[in-house]
Structure formats: structure tokens, C-alpha cells
């Protein structure tokens, strides 16, 4: 059973609980009266009091007080006071031994909110104490009885007011405690929610970090090293540990300054120059915005060995897009170098094995042709010419294959010097003239009056021009024309030198123009018209143009003709003049 205080704290005044105390006390009083054999002044008063008390107790127990108007339950305590009044009157009035029961309903009223209930209760007490004196003939009207009729309610009023005050304060304290408890519970709930959110964020962060680390560590073939702006290492992945042979634990927080040297491996001559500095500042000096700075270099490992690597440096940006550090991705290029060397060896081997027998064939053909002591018949000369032509064709094919292999291996270089392009174009025309004559194709050259010079490799550019002119003749039917022009194009300041080779040949389908420079690609018009070739000439020509910093353009109309334009840069470096 909950205590009164608990009931007060909970804010719910249990009417039935207080009434049951009253009822029990009333019953005890009756039992004591019976046991003690106290004579009744008149029994009707006792019976009325008992009836009132039972009615009040039943009402307290069964009426739905929460749904009834507030304050209506006070009637229970007033009925109790009246019941005690009847009991007192029936058991001797001022001399009754059970009159003290009056204190219980007065205390109940005292515990109600406000002072009015206790004042009204005390006034009611005055009435029921004075009434027997004034109305009951059996009760003598004495000064003592009158004083008792006034003094007892006065004491009850003071007691009730005191209890009311204490109850009010207790209630206020209980309310404050309750408010505090609610606030505490709310804070606790908020704290738990924040804690849950924090935990979720921590989980998310952990997952994100694990994902990032797993991605970085999965790149076992690349060393990935992240630094702050000052070069202090913040990330050192598994690939880096494997490459360098040191653990991330030892290097995180240390300054990143790998010992680097420029590339010295001549098997890959087209690799760009490497960093020349060894300090961190030189690593990031060439960084330009978000573009990666990719270099090839040799790094010296802690064990003293050297490793050929490609080192890509990039800027690392934070969420606010401000540079927060740098990222270095180091790729081991040793195997690539080995593969390049093997390819180089293969090219050398094939070169030797194919060109040596061709040397014999062509050399002995020449000896037979030059043998003045045993001159050949016209038929033999014609047959030998066929052999020589095909041997030369085979030699050209071997040359193109080897050159293509060199281009793919990045192993072809240029012997640049100041050259006059008119002579190169003239030589190409002269070289193609015999074939053009026999094919019934007109060759027309348009050369400028003023010399056009550039910084280039005369042999390679001659090869490119030869390819373009020979191709044009090959794809033009008898009666057609091949025009070669050399001029400067002022509308293209970057590549002002232009060599156009135009034909009135079979043309190239528009859908195939993009594929023309792919090795071994042949246009459908070429295969349909059985034009001989293997599809390497344009690959080589484009590679030569690119190596000179130029480009190769194609415009073609199927059935009408094609124009190849070799666009080249002008000028000669000051140091070479």
C-alpha cells in the first residue's frame, strides 16, 4: 500500500485510502465502546453516524472521482465530520471518549489544496461541537462545554492550517522533484539519443576508414603515400610497405623525402626526364592545380638496391576544396623495363634473321646483273627484275614491321637538324614517279618559291612523305592525278607548315577514317579493289608526325579522292642556328 507521501508525490490523492483509515478508526472506536461497556446517550446518533460513514466510504470507493468535477470529493470528509458529530452526540456529547476521531477528516481536508477546505471543516466542527450543547437537552450548557465547543475547533483549525502548510510545501517540493525528475529523464533520453547518433556516426566513420584503408591496401602493386602540406607522411599503404620494405608504423609522421635519381635506363628512351632534386619541395614543385605530375625515375631503396618506378604526384584537397596535402602513387616499372628490353632484343633478332637472307638475295641478284662476262637474256633480266622487286617489297615490309615495333616500344628517336622541306617533297615525288608513270597517274608538285625549313629528321620525314605519295599513287586509277603541295598556313600558328597529298582515287569510307592510323588496318575500299599493302604506312607516318610535334589529318570522299595533310611546327631552336 502506497504511503500518503507517495500518494502526494504522485499527485494523486487517494480518497479511498484516507477514507479506509477513517472507517477503520471508526470501527475500532465502536469496538472499544462496546468492550468498555460505555453507556449510550442515545443510540440513534450512533446508528446515523455509522450509516453516514458507510455511505461516505462506499462513495469514496466506488464513485469515479476523476471524471467528476474537481473538489466534489471534499463532501466525503464533511460527511465524515458530521458522522463523528453524531457519534460524539450519541456517546455523551462533550464527554464522549471518541470525539478525537474528528481530527481524521479535518486532517484529510488539511491535505487538500488551499486553505478554504480546512477553514470550512473547522467551522463545521464548531457547529457539530456547539449543536449538542445548544440543542440536546441532555447536555448541560456550561461554560466548560461552550469553551470546548469553541476551543477544540480552534485547535483543529490551527492544526489543520499547519498540516495544510506542510502539505503545500511537501506538494511543492514533490512537484519540483517531479519536474526535476522529468527534466532529468528528458535529458537522459536526449543523452541516449545523442549517444546513439554519435555511435552511428562513429560506426560510419569506422566503416569509411576501413573501406578507404582496404582500398589503399588492396593496391598491393602500387605504393600509395599521402602527406600533409609539409611532407609529413599520413598514409603509407601495404603496397608501399612491400616496395620499400619498411612498415607504415615506422614511417607515419616522418618526413617524406625519397632518394630519387633521373632515368638512366636507355632501353626506354622516350620516358620523360625525372626529378633531379631529392627533397620534398622538388617533388611538388611541378604540380599545377589538379593535374598529376607523372615522372619516371629510379629510387634507392633502404637496402641500397635501386628500383625503376613511375611516380605520380597529385594535390590532395579537403572538403572545403583547399589543398590539405599531397598524394604520391609509385608504380614499379621494373617488369615494364624488362619487357621493353625483351621487345628490343626481339626486334634486333628479327631484324638480323630477316634482313641477312634478304641481303644475300639482293646482293647476289646484283652480282648476276653486273656479270659482264655472262650477260643475261632479256627474259632472264625480266625474271630477275621480278625477283628483285619482290625481295625489295619483302624488305620494305620487314622495315615497316620493325619500325612499327619500335614505335610501340617507344624506341624510335629522331636525328633532328635544320632541314629544307622542299627537297624532301621533291625526293618523294621523284621516288614515286616511275610507279606513277607505269600506273598512268599524273604527279603534280606545287612547291613554294621561298624555302621552308624546320627542325626535324630528314630521313623520317622523307619516309613519311614517301608513304603518303606512294599511297596516293597506289589508290588512284589510271588517268587520275596526285597533287603534292608544300606551303605555310598562317591560320594555324602552332603547326604552320603543311604538306598536302591529294589524289583522285577511290577514297575512304567516312566511318573508317578514324581507324586509318591503327596498325594493320586496311580500308574496305582498299581490300575491295585489291590494292596491295599491309596497313602500316599510315601508322608509321602518323608516328613520325607526332614525334615531330605535328599531326596527320585526313579528308576523303569515297569515290572522289582523299587528301592527307602533314602538319608540322616551324622554327629552329636558337641553339641550333
Amino acid at each position: 500500500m502506497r504511503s500518503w507521501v507517495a500518494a502526494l508525490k504522485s499527485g494523486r490523492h487517494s480518497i479511498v485510502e484516507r477514507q479506509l483509515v477513517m472507517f477503520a478508526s471508526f470501527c475500532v472506536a465502536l469496538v472499544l465502546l462496546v468492550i468498555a461497556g460505555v453507556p449510550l446517550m442515545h443510540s440513534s446518533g450512533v446508528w446515523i453516524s455509522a450509516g453516514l460513514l458507510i455511505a461516505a466510504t462506499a462513495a469514496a470507493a466506488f464513485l469515479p472521482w476523476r471524471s467528476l468535477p474537481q473538489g466534489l470529493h471534499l463532501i466525503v470528509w464533511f460527511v465524515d465530520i458530521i458522522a463523528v458529530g453524531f457519534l460524539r452526540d450519541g456517546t455523551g456529547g462533550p464527554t464522549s471518549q471518541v470525539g478525537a476521531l474528528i481530527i481524521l477528516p479535518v486532517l484529510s481536508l488539511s491535505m487538500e489544496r488551499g486553505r478554504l477546505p480546512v477553514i470550512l471543516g473547522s467551522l463545521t466542527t464548531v457547529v457539530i461541537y456547539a449543536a449538542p450543547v445548544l440543542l440536546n437537552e441532555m447536555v448541560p450548557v456550561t461554560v466548560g462545554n461552550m469553551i470546548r465547543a469553541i476551543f477544540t475547533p480552534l485547535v483543529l483549525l490551527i492544526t489543520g492550517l499547519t498540516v495544510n502548510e506542510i502539505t503545500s510545501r511537501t506538494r511543492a517540493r514533490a512537484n519540483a522533484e517531479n519536474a526535476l525528475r522529468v527534466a532529468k529523464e528528458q535529458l537522459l533520453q536526449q543523452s541516449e539519443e545523442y549517444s546513439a547518433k554519435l555511435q552511428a556516426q562513429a560506426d560510419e566513420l569506422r566503416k569509411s576508414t576501413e573501406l578507404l584503408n582496404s582500398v589503399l591496401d588492396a593496391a598491393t602493386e602500387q605504393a600509395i603515400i599521402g602527406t600533409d602540406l609539409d611532407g609529413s607522411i599520413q598514409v603509407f599503404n601495404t603496397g608501399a610497405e612491400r616496395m620499400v620494405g619498411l612498415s607504415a608504423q615506422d614511417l607515419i609522421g616522418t618526413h617524406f623525402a625519397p632518394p630519387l635519381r633521373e632515368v638512366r635506363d636507355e632501353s626506354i628512351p622516350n620516358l620523360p626526364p625525372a626529378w633531379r632534386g631529392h627533397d620534398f619541395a622538388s617533388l611538388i614543385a611541378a604540380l599545377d592545380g589538379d593535374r598529376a605530375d607523372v615522372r619516371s625515375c629510379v629510387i634507392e631503396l633502404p637496402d641500397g638496391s635501386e628500383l625503376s618506378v613511375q611516380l605520380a604526384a597529385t594535390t590532395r584537397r579537403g572538403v572545403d576544396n583547399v589543398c590539405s596535402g599531397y598524394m604520391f602513387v609509385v608504380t614499379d616499372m621494373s617488369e615494364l623495363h624488362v619487357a621493353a628490353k625483351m621487345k628490343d632484343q626481339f626486334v634486333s633478332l628479327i631484324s638480323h634473321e630477316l634482313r641477312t637472307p634478304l641481303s644475300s638475295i639482293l646482293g647476289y641478284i646484283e652480282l648476276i646483273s653486273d656479270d659482264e662476262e655472262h650477260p643475261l637474256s632479256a627474259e632472264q633480266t625480266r625474271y630477275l627484275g621480278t625477283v628483285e622487286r619482290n625481295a625489295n617489297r619483302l624488305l620494305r615490309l620487314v622495315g615497316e614491321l620493325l619500325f612499327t615495333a619500335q614505335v610501340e616500344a617507344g624506341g624510335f628517336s629522331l636525328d633532328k637538324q635544320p632541314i629544307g622541306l622542299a627537297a624532301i617533297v621533291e625526293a618523294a615525288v621523284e621516288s614515286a614517279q616511275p610507279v606513277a608513270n607505269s600506273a598512268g597517274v599524273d604527279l603534280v608538285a606545287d612547291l613554294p618559291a621561298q624555302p621552308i625549313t624546320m627542325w626535324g629528321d630528314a630521313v623520317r620525314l622523307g619516309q613519311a612523305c614517301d608513304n603518303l605519295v606512294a599511297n596516293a599513287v597506289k589508290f588512284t586509277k589510271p588517268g587520275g592525278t596526285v597533287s603534292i603541295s608544300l606551303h605555310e598556313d598562317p591560320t594555324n600558328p602552332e603547326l604552320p607548315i603543311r604538306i598536302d597529298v591529294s589524289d583522285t582515287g577511290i577514297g575512304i569510307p567516312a566511318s573508317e577514317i578514324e581507324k586509318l592510323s591503327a596498325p594493320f588496318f586496311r580500308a574496305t575500299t582498299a581490300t575491295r579493289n585489291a590494292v596491295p599493302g599491309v596497313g602500316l604506312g599510315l601508322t608509321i607516318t602518323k608516328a613520325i608526325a607526332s614525334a615531330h610535334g605535328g599531326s596527320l589529318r585526313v579528308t576523303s570522299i569515297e569515290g572522289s579522292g582523299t587528301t592527307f595533310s602533314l602538319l608540322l611546327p616551324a622554327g629552329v631552336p636558337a641553339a641550333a642556328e
Partner: protein
Amino acid sequence: MTVTVSERILIADDDPDIRELLSVAVSKAGHEVAYAAVDGSDALAAARRESIRMAILDVSMPNMTGLEVCAALRADPRTAGVTVVLVSAGVQDSAVQAGLDVGADRYLTKPFSPRALARVISELLDRPAENGNLS
């Protein structure tokens, strides 16, 4: 007026057909084949043994390459003045440069015309021996 004097020339190639072509070219130029070596070490021994004015060496030979033979000839005071022509199937610029770097006077690529080789021989031998590298 140039008077051609028959000089003794060493030729070296592991391919017998090419050796014969080289011999014809030497003969066409009006000179004499002192020895036809079948590999690099054979060529070096012959160069030290025979009194020769010129050595025409294939680059890719067993035992010693033409480049190694050329370097050895240049390193030996007795043979340092021999004119050396390297003949190779290697057409890469790096191969040509490697030949010239070891002191060869001329680098020819296969296939070569016997007629053209004869002209080269004449051109190199008709000049004073100490003219140095013409390439």
C-alpha cells in the same frame, strides 16, 4: 689522279653467303681479302696476325660481336689504325650510334649493295690512313 693500291682487307661474318658477297665487293674495289673470319674471336686473331689495312665486320657474330672486335682493335696500338667498317642488320639509331661510339669508320646496314660497298671501301682507303672518323 688517284692511284689505287691493292690493300689487304679482313672480312668477318658468320653467314658464308654474306662472306662471299663481302669478298666480291672487296675484289670489285680492287683490293685483296686477307682473311675471311667466321666469328668475332677469329676476326680479332686474324687482325693481329695478318697485316691488314681494313676490317669489314658483321656486328652480330658468335664469340665476339663486331662492336667488341672493333673496340679491341682500337685499344691495341698495333691495330688502332685499321679502318673499320661495321655491317649490321640492326637499323635502330641506337645500334648505329653504338657502332660509331666504339670507333668504327663507317656503319652499313643490311641489305647492302656489293657495288655500294665497293665504293665505300674505295672512298675510305683512298684517303690518308690517319684521317680519322669520316662518319
